[in-house]
């Protein structure tokens, strides 16, 4: 018997050698799919796996050497002892590698028996994957930076239909952190100070978080991966449990890591190589679209806030009035019967009141317990009316995020400044300003970083006309029910404007708050106020502080044409006690997704001086 066992072992060793030799001969370790499975990438610092040293690697040098890792993997498949920390054998801990190597090398079932993997099988049958959908959570209110988006994947069950996608499972990559200090957290997030992990959870958890709590619209893009590709991706997920990566906010973030999963499924998708130092989630989605990995147009899942705003917009004045009373009148004043409403009218008002209350309750109001009692009462009242919801789900915006203009902008401008010819080139690395084509973006939201304008005065050297470190704005319309504030923040330098003397570059720091209103969903009107600080040799004490007031409007006339105007006033105090007035108008015409024409007019006057500028711009996004 001992001899038989020894023979079997020798046979197995012999078979292992044969497999390793065949793998070498076929250069399997060089294949893109093997490298994708190891998350192996070449970079400036050398070639190695992005996964941190962990039980993900079976070879000592597996992180740097795909060949060594492949050899060690084959060897481990023969072993029946459980891997440390995983409580399963290597075959079961690495089902994707097993599947791939088995199909490439045609494992002999006698010489390398397939082991039973009860945990993996149970998990897989629960996930029941049939297809993959890429999920984009778009921006949320008053946070322009969230416009970059967040992406995750959804594993669609075989039994899933359009009405039960909540029961599918979501794959998310996120950093593990406990830091409450926002600055530490920002720095560590950017510098790779956190580890990132993949996780799988019910999709309804994600919808609850993004749609209900954070009020972000969700877009769902079904991918056209084949069943075998889906199978390999899901098997690979099992391999990624608890495997740490380093999380880098800019380039190795949620969306980048999802691309690596897609490349495991389909190695011909060259997605990660398209991105450099900044991986913007929406852009990764656009890359997936370009690589034709999409099956269909996206599904739109409106956030709780979007649904509420839609309901408000559709409600007549009576319904709005009654809803507010139902939601906010004190108990003593609330007499449902006295409202004299038909069942239909009452149902409509209750539906609006209930969504409004849910929104308020989510937003942690001071009068929480009172709102909760009222919500409970009104939900009960609504349940007594067996009529359907009369307000349909909001329609998706005309332009979905993958069809929005690209992040970088380059402009060429020509015109007159103070009656002299004026030429300008401008480059903005990111992301969206108010005059830009609004399709796919949140109207009223602006985030611009590191924009630089160069002008070319006749007979002189080119010079910087404007440099923006940050130019942010968030104009969020108020209505009867929801009253957010709007805000802006700008830090940068500009040569424009009426200044005490000369035309030097003046640095400014401005910010403030205000209100915004929407008219018929096509126009925004805003009023913003706040402090301003100017630094420059033009000023007596090299700086000036003041208060700035702005009133403006942005009108979307057609899906190509928009006009905007702003009137602003700055009062600088105390030594430089003068008023500066400005009027800026603009008209933008969209030629195509990434090309626009714009006319701008600027006037500035104060302290007896006056300046004007008329420009024509050609703007390209890329």
């Amino acid at each position, binding site marked *: 018997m001992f001899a038989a066992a020894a023979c079997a072992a020798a046979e197995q060793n012999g078979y292992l050698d044969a497999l390793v030799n065949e793998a070498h001969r076929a250069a399997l370790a060089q294949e893109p799919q093997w490298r994708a499975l190891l998350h192996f990438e070449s970079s400036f610092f050398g070639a190695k796996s992005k996964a941190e040293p962990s039980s993900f690697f079976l070879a000592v040098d597996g992180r740097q050497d795909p060949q060594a890792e492949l050899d060690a993997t084959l060897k481990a498949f023969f072993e029946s002892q459980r891997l440390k920390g995983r409580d399963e054998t290597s075959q079961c801990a690495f089902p994707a590698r097993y599947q791939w190597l088995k199909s490439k090398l045609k494992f002999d079932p006698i010489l390398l028996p397939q082991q039973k993997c009860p945990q993996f099988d*149970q998990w897989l049958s629960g996930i029941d994957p049939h297809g993959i959908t890429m999920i984009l959570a778009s921006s949320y209110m008053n946070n322009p930076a969230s416009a970059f988006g967040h992406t995750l994947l959804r594993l669609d069950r075989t039994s899933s239909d359009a009405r039960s996608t*909540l029961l599918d*499972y979501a794959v998310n990559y996120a950093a593990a952190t406990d830091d409450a200090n926002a600055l530490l957290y920002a720095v560590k997030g950017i510098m790779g100070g956190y580890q*990132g992990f993949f*996780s799988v959870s019910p999709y309804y958890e994600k919808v609850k978080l993004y749609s209900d709590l954070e009020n972000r619209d969700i877009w769902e893009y079904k991918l056209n991966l084949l069943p075998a590709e889906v199978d390999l991706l899901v098997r690979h997920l099992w391999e990624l449990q608890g495997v740490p990566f380093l*999380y880098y906010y800019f380039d190795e973030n949620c969306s980048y890591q999802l691309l690596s999963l897609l490349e495991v499924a389909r190695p011909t998708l060259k997605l990660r190589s398209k991105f450099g130092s900044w991986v913007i989630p929406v852009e990764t989605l656009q890359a997936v679209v370009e690589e034709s990995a999409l099956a269909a147009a996206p599904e739109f899942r409106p956030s709780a806030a979007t649904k509420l705003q839609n309901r408000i917009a559709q409600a007549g004045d009576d319904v709005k009035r009654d809803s507010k009373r139902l939601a906010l009148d004190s108990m003593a004043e609330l007499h449902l019967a006295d409202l004299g409403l038909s069942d239909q009218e009452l149902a409509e008002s209750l539906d609006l009141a209930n969504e409004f209350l849910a929104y308020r309750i989510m937003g942690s109001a001071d009068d*929480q317990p009172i709102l909760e009692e009222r919500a409970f009462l009104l939900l009960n009242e609504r349940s007594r009316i067996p009529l359907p919801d009369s307000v349909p789900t909001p329609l998706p915006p005309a332009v979905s995020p993958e069809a929005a203009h690209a992040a970088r902008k380059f402009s060429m401008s020509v015109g007159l400044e103070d009656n002299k010819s004026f030429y300008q080139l401008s480059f903005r690395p990111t992301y969206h300003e108010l005059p830009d084509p609004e399709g796919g973006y949140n109207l009223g939201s602006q985030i611009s970083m590191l924009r630089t304008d160069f002008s070319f005065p006749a007979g002189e050297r080119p010079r910087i006309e404007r440099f923006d470190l940050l130019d942010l704005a968030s104009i969020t319309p108020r209505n009867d029910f929801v009253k957010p504030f709007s805000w802006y923040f700008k830090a940068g330098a500009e040569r424009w404007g009426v200044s005490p003397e000369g035309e030097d570059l003046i640095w400014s720091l401005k910010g403030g708050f205000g209100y915004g209103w929407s008219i018929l969903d096509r126009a925004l009107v805003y009023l913003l106020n706040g402090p301003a600080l100017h630094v420059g040799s033009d000023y007596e004490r090299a700086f000036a502080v003041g208060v700035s007031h702005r009133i403006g409007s942005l009108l979307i006339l057609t899906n190509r044409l928009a006009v905007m105007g702003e009137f602003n006033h700055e009062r600088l105090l105390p030594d430089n006690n003068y008023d500066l007035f400005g009027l800026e108008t603009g008209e933008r015409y969209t030629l195509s997704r990434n090309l626009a024409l714009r006319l701008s007019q600027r006037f500035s006057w104060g302290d007896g001086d006056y300046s004007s500028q008329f420009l024509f711009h050609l703007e390209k996004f890329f």
Partner: protein
Amino acid sequence: MKRILAVVVFASVVPSLALADSVGGCGWGSKLFDGQKGVFPQILAVTTNGTSGNQTFGISSGTSGCTQSGVVTSAWKTAAFIDANMPKLAMDMSRGQGESMDSLASLVGVPAADRIVFNSTLQANFGRIFASTDVTSTDVTSNIKSVLAENSALSAYSVNI
């Protein structure tokens, strides 16, 4: 301060003392109004990843951190779904329609033909199901089960809760 980056906990699916299939055994505790404070959007939020408490790998882990070993029964999944979706379920049930109701029907195995009865029956029994502002998901689950059991058209599905 909002925790914007997730705390990710890897929980391996380890065979352990099997928790009873019964809903009560796991102690699902979510309330209708969970005291979930909304997120005050950080003006310069650095990252946009999720903040839900426990993100795991096992499909058998619900929001209450409940883990079930072995085959995940539909009863368990239903309890987990209700536990995680109380406010939305209440909203949908008050109207007798909605995605949460459809998902619940799907979990409980109600075919398309019986959906209308399912929806209207639950709506009509809202007061019994969401009995008070303090009702827990355990209560809601067992109340739904009772309501279904009492209805001749739907009693067959009550075993799936």
